[in-house]
């Protein structure tokens, strides 16, 4: 099977990789690049644990052939905190609201939550629950996650009104 040269920008860093056509993006990120924040869980596009942001939109890396995202900019959970290690406001809110128990869904939840806040700075509860529909959490019952997103939106309101 012929390998393809793929150029990816992951969290601002450029990578040139050789990938086989049948390699999944989730495995390239986790195993070839070595960033294990992106999780593999169901492998069938049901749970959202493998979510990464490709060219500004969250997608499922377990249903994406790595070769098809050649030239793309990718953000994984490792790219969310600031370079000095301080957390993104949504990550802080996840800690404050007990939105994390086992933590397996958290990378996907944070990426999808940030996507919502980017598109809709002040979402209501229904809009939050609809946007995270593709991300399954088996521990928290979602309430903490919804509160974290709400809290981040509320904290950013005054800034946006200035």
């Amino acid at each position, binding site marked *: *099977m*012929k390998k*393809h040269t793929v150029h990816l920008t992951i969290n601002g860093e450029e990578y040139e990789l050789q990938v*086989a*056509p*049948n*390699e*999944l993006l989730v*495995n390239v990120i986790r195993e070839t690049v070595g960033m294990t924040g992106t999780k*593999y869980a*169901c*492998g*069938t*596009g*049901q749970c*959202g644990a493998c*979510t990464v942001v490709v060219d500004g*939109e*969250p*997608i*499922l890396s*377990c*249903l*994406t*052939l790595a*070769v*098809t995202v*050649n030239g793309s900019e990718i953000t994984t959970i490792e790219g969310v905190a600031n370079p000095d290690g301080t957390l993104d406001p949504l990550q802080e809110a996840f800690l404050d609201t007990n939105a994390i128990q086992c933590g397996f869904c958290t990378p996907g939840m944070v990426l*999808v939550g940030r*996507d*919502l806040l980017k598109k809709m700075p002040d979402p209501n509860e229904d809009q939050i629950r*609809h*946007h*995270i*529909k*593709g991300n399954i959490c088996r521990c928290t019952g979602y309430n903490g996650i919804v509160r974290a997103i709400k809290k981040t939106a509320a904290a950013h309101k005054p800034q946006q009104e200035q």
Partner: protein
Amino acid sequence: MNTRLISHEFEYHAPKTLQKALELLSRYGSEAKILAGGTDLVGHLKFGKRTPAHVIDIKKLAELKTISKGSVIKIGAGNKFKAVQDFFAGRIDYAGLFESIYSIGKTQVLNMGTIGGNLANGSPKADTAPPLLTYNARIKLVSLNGERTLDLKGFHIGPNTTVMADNEILTEIEFGALPSNASSAFEKTARVGADISKVTCAVTVIREGSVCKSCRIACGAAAPVPMRTPRAEKLINGKPAEKQLVEKVALQVGKEIDPPTWGRTSQEYRRHMVAVMFTDGFWRAWKKAGGE
């Protein structure tokens, strides 16, 4: 079943133009599969349900991503669900199509899946098929030998089977504008919100005062193919929209579908639910079309 990787090996092609994609498809024929959003095909590759020697990626073809307004609406088959959902947001006439995509729900799937893939995949459960059937949509199939435009009705011929030839690509979906006193709705039942449908029902109504001038009904996951229910439609076309009549139509929709016997959902449940869903969908569409 290992869903962690794809053990099947294939050659990957990323043609820059539709013409190049058609040339590749013509060369490899039944040995090739088209990759659009990947949400179905990549799963099928994992499970060994499809074992193409060649995968032709049309994800980035700009030619398939146009949407044009006007008296005929034309949607390029390569448009992501998200783009189609945004395009029809807030429109009363095509609310059924909007709702069908909204019901798919998952942010990531809306960013990946395409409207063309949803149809070309041939699933009887395709959520966009019922509303499009009620718009009398037509689809354009293109090959190196030329193009043909067909009614969507008749495109699906069995579970996961369509009339598409091995050398054809679905490039466009088109339908005529609805009059101003028309609206549509989509109803779906599934295990949980983000699941694949158990049964769906789309309704398009054209109202003339208190008379239902035309009622088009289509159901998904209700038969081997997405289907219209012409006998039910006939009961109400040209008649005043009254509660008793709508209930009668609903029962006929339940009788007319041909639900599968396999799977988690029984035939009886599907027949019962589709009647309930038709009733809800009819009245929602009727009210949106200005009816009482």
